[in-house]
């Protein structure tokens, strides 16, 4: 029917900024994330999508080494410019990496800033921790400059403000300024615009994309907003039940989804398709609690196409971890 679209050649391990192999996240024998493989090259923007509870945030926290105390990560996370594996590294080694080589933007700008510290001090601190600026005075001056570059009106005044004196959008700009303060090789964004107004969302997204493009930084962008992924990212990974169920180029995955879950997600986001009773398309059921996903294909209890075969975990079909899917009855073929 259509010409075969070239798979994106996933960046080879030598040049990759981030290489994740077999990442698993476990809490008290319950696997929250299993066998996640992920490679991001310089300047590449990769989306990670899925419903709430599909393990997106746990994957991000696992990469950052910020998991809560009783949650453990296994596998391997390598970052360019860092000699050691991030999994299993001690807190001291990790704190040297975090903020310098990899930085994070959080979901709730209202709570991601310390309410008792002036905004300028918080930006300055990010640079002082890693000695990007030699002293407090230089860091303060640089902080004003950074706030100016993220488009805060009157940056000198803003640097003296406390977080509660700024609007949500302005706070998120500050968070972005802090994250980009040390020009990290990798920026991890955990639903950075979910808490913002739609009008502000676009501005903040633009800011983030311009920020990483200017630095040629890699970006891992977590969201459940498919439209955001389509505008921001080049590649996308679809997660469900703690596994990557499909991966590929954004246009490819969104126009020709293979995994039935991806197909459901995209179907559910189309607000023009309604059934005979005028209701929007949904995925039946809801995401099970961690640990109660079915054996075999994690999606089979909500899938219209599941068969006995789905009790066996589906293998990954595709040229590499960046392109492919894990489904016994993929869409886009005649229904098996």
């Amino acid at each position, binding site marked *: 029917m259509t010409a075969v679209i070239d798979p994106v050649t996933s960046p080879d391990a030598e040049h990759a900024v981030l290489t994740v192999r077999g990442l698993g996240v476990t809490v008290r024998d319950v696997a929250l994330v299993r066998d996640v493989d992920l490679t991001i090259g310089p300047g590449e923007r990769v989306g990670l999508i899925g419903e709430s509870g599909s393990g997106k945030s746990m994957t991000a926290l696992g990469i*950052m080494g*910020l998991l809560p*105390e*009783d949650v453990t990560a296994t596998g391997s996370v390598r970052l360019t410019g860092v000699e050691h594996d991030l999994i299993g590294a001690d*807190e*001291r080694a990790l*704190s*040297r*990496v*975090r*903020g*310098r080589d990899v*930085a*994070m933007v*959080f*979901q*709730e700008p209202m*709570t*991601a*800033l*310390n*309410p*008792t*510290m002036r905004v300028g001090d918080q930006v300055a*601190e*990010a640079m002082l*921790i*890693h000695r990007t600026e030699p002293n407090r005075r230089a860091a303060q001056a640089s902080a004003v400059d950074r706030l100016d570059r993220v488009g*805060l*009106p*009157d940056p000198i*005044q*803003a640097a*003296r*403000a406390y977080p*509660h*004196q*700024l*609007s*949500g*959008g*302005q706070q998120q*700009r500050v*968070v972005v300024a*802090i994250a980009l303060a040390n020009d990290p090789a990798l920026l991890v964004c955990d639903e950075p615009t979910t*808490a*913002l*107004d739609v*009008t*502000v969302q676009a*501005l903040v997204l633009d800011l983030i994309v311009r920020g990483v493009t200017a630095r040629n930084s890699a970006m891992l962008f977590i969201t459940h907003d498919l439209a955001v992924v389509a505008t921001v990212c080049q590649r996308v990974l679809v997660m469900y039940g703690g596994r990557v169920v499909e991966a590929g180029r954004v246009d490819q995955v969104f126009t020709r989804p293979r995994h039935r879950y991806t197909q459901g997600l995209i179907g559910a986001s189309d607000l023009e398709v309604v059934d005979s009773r005028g209701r929007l398309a949904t995925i039946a059921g809801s995401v099970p609690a961690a640990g109660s996903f079915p054996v075999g294909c994690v999606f089979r209890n909500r899938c219209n196409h599941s068969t006995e075969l789905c009790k066996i975990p589906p293998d990954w079909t595709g040229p590499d971890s960046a392109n492919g899917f894990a489904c016994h009855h993929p869409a886009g073929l005649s229904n098996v």
Partner: protein
Amino acid sequence: MSSPDDVVVQPNSDRRRGPRLNPSLVVGGVIVMCVVLMALVSFAWTPYDPTRVDATQRLLGSSAKHWFGTDKFGRDVLSQILMGSRTTLFVGLVAVGVAAVIGVPLGILAAMTTRRLGELLMRGNDLLLAFPALLLAIMFGAVYNASTLTAMIAIGIASVPNFARVIRSGALQVMGTEYVLAARSAGRRPFAIGVRHVLPNVSSLIIVQTSVSFAIAVLAEAALSFLGLGTPPPTPSWGRMLLESQEMLYSAPRLAIFPGLAIAVAVLGFNLLGDGLRDRFDPKLEDRR
């Protein structure tokens, strides 16, 4: 929720909090100010030397010369009350200082370390909490002579568990916030997170706890002095004034009433202040900010 993005920064907009002044804060504040004022006045002026014994002026009733009368040694009661407020404040300050200096870091540490170590620290804390403050002070008094200092330190140590417990609960809440996660993701070391992020955000709890502990310390000092284990003579102390008035309770009740009233009002003042401050900095309101 968030206003359009080009809104100009408003540095003077106030934090969302309860009413600025509540009655208990005002009344408590005024009483505490009065006690502080009394202590300050006593440095510059008292009607008479509070320690001067005068056999010719024994057990006088209230008069223009001696407003609160004189005790069995002929000492002026008003002067003693004024001087006694110094002892009260001094004891409170040192005892609460000891409690805060040990209790606050302990509470933050217990919140920031591993869950297991935190629990261990808190169980040890419970052990100390179960130990009566007065008993500890009496033991201290028996081992190192009874003095204001031993009383203060004993009261301070006995107040540590309360501090540690309250601060830990607040610090646990702060440790769960995204800005602590953000600080960690920016590469902040645990010590810096404790000092720069946790401590400022539990400061309202520290203020409230200080005020409440102050009331307890004042009461404990009075009790110890009444038992003869606190401030030794001749330094005036409200508690010891009560002790000395005991044998004349029926003939000269005012000797018990004035110091008793002073203790009651001062304790009430610190408690009201603590309550008022608690309402003002309600930790639950802090979260919604």
